């Protein structure tokens, strides 16, 4: 699967990027491991996942071309 990954808030600073594409992703677990491999600091942060703009509380089932967002706690207002 091709997965578009978005990083927000402090995570965009940790990864030094806000958008990154991962190819041949097998599952969300696989995606997370590859991200943590690329950015080991990620494990220290608290975040939620949204897939295609919807928050998913368990490990999501991914489909080709999904957009997966890594979101620290919201601090708007």
């Amino acid at each position, binding site marked *: 699967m091709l997965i578009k990954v*978005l990083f*927000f*808030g*402090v995570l*965009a*600073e940790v990864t030094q990027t806000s958008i990154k594409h991962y190819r041949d992703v097998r599952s969300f677990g696989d995606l997370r491991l590859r991200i943590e491999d690329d950015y080991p600091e990620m494990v220290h942060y*608290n975040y*939620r996942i*949204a897939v295609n*703009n919807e928050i998913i509380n368990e490990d999501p089932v991914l489909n080709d071309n999904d957009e997966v*967002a890594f*979101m*620290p*706690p*919201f*601090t*708007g*207002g």
Partner: protein
Amino acid sequence: MSENILINGPVTHSKISSVIKSISNKIEAGGHSVFIGQVRADMVGRKIVKAIEYSAYENMVKKEADKITKMIYAEFNDVKSINILHSVGIVKVGEASLFVLVSAGHRSHAIQACSKLVNMIKEKLPIWKKEIFEDNTHEWKQDSFA
């Protein structure tokens, strides 16, 4: 509410004024409750905040804002209209980053609905703030999940 609530830079007085001017057309409304969030000259340790930089997951903000306004209309059937404006980008101390207006037939509904909506905006909208200090260092606000 299909229009985008995000605006670049501060919510200016002229934007606020033009929204407030529109309330006189709502002749079935008796009460308007407004909340304005403003960047405060906070001390964090020994540093003084000079600005906040907001970033947002824009498509999701639209979707979530739509959901929460629908929830407010469903809970308060006396609410006639809702306006929300939220900044992205740099907002300096003394400038506004959030404007919420709820118009209702009766004052108590306007006030309750506005208060609830402000809380939902803070909880539900994927927006992040980075505090920028007078020495140009910065720090991400680290609230935990509600």
